[in-house]
């Protein structure tokens, strides 16, 4: 049945009002559905960005720490430090056969420990804290004359950066440690703090 003009207009206005109300409801519903989703996504993004940020900070911290540690024992000549970093960059990452290698996550530095002697078992080198102390003492007391370095079995390294260092343990046995990051500056041996830490961890693990 045909509507009169008044009815027609009233119906138009009624539907327009209904449409507006429904649009508001729809917007609210969308907000209720989308807001938690957006919050979740935002949370995930925040966690990711914090994770990446942390990682970046970690690298910066590690680098800073390693530089600091290299500088700490004495004031090495700047050119020597440059040499050290250059040779670190040149150093091959693959360990030689029969070596136990422990690398940090970002591959900036690594430490390789070996018994050198073919007959000795891997991991037997450090078995107690006292042994570790002995090694550290031995390193500290390492002869200043580079020629007394035993073995000189550098593994593809240049400029004498990786040396097999002979260590006299408490029992009087001579063991061999290869430090990739050992650095001889003005007759003093320096070992990166990271190497110490890794060594320490390794020794403690062995001790357990």
């Amino acid at each position, binding site marked *: 049945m*045909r509507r009169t003009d008044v009815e027609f207009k009233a119906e138009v206005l009624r539907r*327009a009002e209904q449409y*507006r109300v429904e649009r508001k409801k729809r917007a609210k519903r969308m907000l209720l559905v989308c807001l938690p989703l957006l919050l979740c996504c935002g949370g995930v993004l925040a966690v990711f960005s914090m994770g990446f940020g942390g990682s970046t900070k970690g690298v910066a911290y590690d680098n800073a720490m390693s530089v600091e540690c290299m500088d700490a024992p004495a004031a090495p000549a700047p050119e020597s430090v440059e040499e050290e970093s250059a040779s670190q960059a040149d150093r091959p990452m693959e360990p030689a056969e029969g070596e136990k290698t422990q690398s940090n996550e970002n591959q900036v530095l690594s430490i390789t420990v070996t018994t050198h002697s073919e007959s000795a078992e891997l991991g037997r080198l450090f078995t107690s804290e006292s042994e570790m102390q002995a090694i550290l003492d031995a390193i500290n007391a390492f002869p200043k004359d580079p020629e007394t370095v035993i073995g000189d079995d550098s593994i593809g390294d240049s400029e004498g950066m990786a040396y097999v260092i002979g260590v006299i343990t408490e029992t009087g046995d001579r063991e061999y440690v290869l430090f990739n990051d050992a650095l001889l500056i003005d007759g003093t041996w320096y070992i990166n703090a990271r190497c110490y830490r890794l060594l320490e961890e390794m020794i403690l693990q062995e001790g357990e």
Partner: protein
Amino acid sequence: MKNGESSYRRYLDGDQSAFDEIMGLYRNSLTFFINRFVHDMDTAEDLAIDTFMYLIVHRHRYNFKTSLKTYLFMIGRSRALDYLRRRGRFSMVELSEAEKELPAQPSVEALILLDERKQALNRALTRLPRDMQTAIHLVYFEDLSYEDAAKVMRKNKKQVANLLYRSKVQLRSILGKDGALV
């Protein structure tokens, strides 16, 4: 002189009575145009209401570059096609029931098709394909230009001209057979 655009402008400026003018101007022709698609006057009126509602709720979508009539017919056509798509070509009302209802007012067709020749033309038009019907309707019943008709039909001017030419050829043949044009 009243025209749809100025009335709509006044409506947007807050003059509520301007919308009555717009409805007065276009209600019947729009309903009749929509009926060309849906073949049901109540549905056509319903869709015309939706079309006018669109003008109210989406106030700033009309850019005044085309005539308001063209704009309304564009919306009306979309509404009609949407309705047909939804309905899936199934009739919702029993024909026998629909026939029982007597119009309380003179029908829109009766209002628009006062001319006998137009009535004959309208009868013949129903036998044409929908696009042809729409083109003929817009140009010869609503006096829209080819350009405006093309906008309503979402075609270009040339396509509308071709459609009209072919429609006229077919219509001539239909009307000739019926004897209306003889």
